[in-house]
């Protein structure tokens, strides 16, 4: 237990002032703006939104700036801010089948209907430092126009279309008529009964931001905890299942990144309205399953859904989700950490972890004083006993 202490106000003020100075860095270097962070550090912004559990790119960029780039500190700032917001509503479940897809790949079907779309990926890059990015002031290297009429990415969206450019196929063309709906890969396996189905339900899901988490948790509560959990922790848990600690034989059935509309029932109106759009990353794994006492042999599924573009986290989440389902599917508990719901759910939140970890640096003078007294007493007793024995 730590105790309240008094004093040190001036030292604390000075420390915070120095922090502000260090945050700014050398005044000879231009200061970062929030739009610069939002646009050019987008994946850091995405991570802060996902783990802060609040979708607002400007606020996440501000938090990153204030936290000097310490992403967990930035998540902390966002979590603190979100507690000040009144909860106005819950959305209708987002329809990821209607996602405007930037990226969509499958590791299980090479010729999937709708096609494999790479999107703006790091995959197939050589991971060599690009020193051109360091050459300040030089104009960015022009990107050759991709085939199919694609435009090179620019700072502004051009609304003009080149009439001479060949018409480019829309993503998901040929599916569902007008709107480019892209079917989920698992729906193909569903048709043959080879994979478990996920039956829709509109029951109000538990919310760990409202009620303390109780174990055993159902799958919906686990997914909420994993979606806001620390990417590094969830990655390591997922990796441990791949290395054999609770093996689940996962394939990435599908990974998709893009934007979906968020629809909310407006009480004043009595109908639902789309209030905005958010970027999501979704991963569905297809897992080998030999069958159990209750289930026939078929493929099973793990699910990951994360705010922003975060495929490492989404894949990891779907592996951990599947691993935690051992009981529901009648599998054996092998003692692996990734099968242990309490271990995963109680340790995946980096703000809880940081809070408890870092509190030990705060004044523990009274506790420590008591420990000191105890050790002194024990030592004195030990010395006295040794002397008596001699």
């Amino acid at each position: 237990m730590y105790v309240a202490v008094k004093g040190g106000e001036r030292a604390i003020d000075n420390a915070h002032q120095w922090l502000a100075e260090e945050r700014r860095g050398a005044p000879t270097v231009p200061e970062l703006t929030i739009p610069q962070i939002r646009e050019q550090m987008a994946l850091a912004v995405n991570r802060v939104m996902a783990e802060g559990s609040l979708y607002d790119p400007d606020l996440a960029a501000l938090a990153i700036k204030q936290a000097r780039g310490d992403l967990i500190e930035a998540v902390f700032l966002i979590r603190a801010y979100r507690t000040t917001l009144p909860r106005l509503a819950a959305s209708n479940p987002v329809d990821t089948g209607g996602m405007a897809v930037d990226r969509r790949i499958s590791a299980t079907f090479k010729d999937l209907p709708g096609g494999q779309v790479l999107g703006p990926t790091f995959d197939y890059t050589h991971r060599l430092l690009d020193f051109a990015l360091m050459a300040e002031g030089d104009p960015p290297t022009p990107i050759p126009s991709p085939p199919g009429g694609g435009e090179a990415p620019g700072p502004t969206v051009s609304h003009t279309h080149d009439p001479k450019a060949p018409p480019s196929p829309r993503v998901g063309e040929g599916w569902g008529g007008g709107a480019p709906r892209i079917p989920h890969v698992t729906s193909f396996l569903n048709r043959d009964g080879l994979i478990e189905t996920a039956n829709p339900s509109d029951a109000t899901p538990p919310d760990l931001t409202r009620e303390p988490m109780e174990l055993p948790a159902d799958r919906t509560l686990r997914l909420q905890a994993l979606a806001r959990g620390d990417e590094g922790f969830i990655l390591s848990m997922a990796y441990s299942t791949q290395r054999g600690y609770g093996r689940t034989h996962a394939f990435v059935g599908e990974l998709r990144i893009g934007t979906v509309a968020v629809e909310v029932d407006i009480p004043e109106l009595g109908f639902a309205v789309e209030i905005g759009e958010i970027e999501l990353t979704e991963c569905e794994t297809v897992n080998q399953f030999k069958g159990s006492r209750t289930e026939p042999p078929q493929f099973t599924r793990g699910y990951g859904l994360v705010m922003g573009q975060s495929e490492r986290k989404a894949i990891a989440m779907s592996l951990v989700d599947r691993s935690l389902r051992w009981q529901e599917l009648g599998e054996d508990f092998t003692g692996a950490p990734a099968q242990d719901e309490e271990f995963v759910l109680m340790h995946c939140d980096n703000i809880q972890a940081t809070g408890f970890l870092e509190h030990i640096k705060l004044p523990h003078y009274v506790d420590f004083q008591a420990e000191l007294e105890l050790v002194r007493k024990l030592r004195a007793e030990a010395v006295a006993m040794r002397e008596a024995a001699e």
Partner: protein
Amino acid sequence: MTDTSPLARKTRMATLAKAPPARLAALFPDLPPHHVLRRPEIGAVMVRGRVGATGAAFNLGEMTVTRASVRLETGEVGHAWVQGRDRTHALRAAALDALMQTGAADDLTARILRPLESEAEARQTARATKAAATKVDFFTMVRGEDK
């Protein structure tokens, strides 16, 4: 065309909510005389997903939202729920929702809603075009051990 059907209203409220606030301000700079029924309020909406995309609903995380309601001097009431924390965006959207119930609807549709719709479509097409340019066809190679 003073269309007050829920579908038309649903569509235009979505268009106004998704419009970039600066663009809406440029197209609709001056608010008509109005009485504020609900001052712009910033809050959060819990976004839900579905297990396995089609199953039970679960809580994914929140997003910031601003809502506002206004009444025009002529009595029409307009509502807005818009993503983000821009109060004037919500007020403008609410005022337009109210004005769309008046005789000004046709003019506003032509001057504001149609341009916003076509710009949104152009943004989506531009992204879809880039995505389509990264569409690949993987083919499997014959592996040594298969020979």
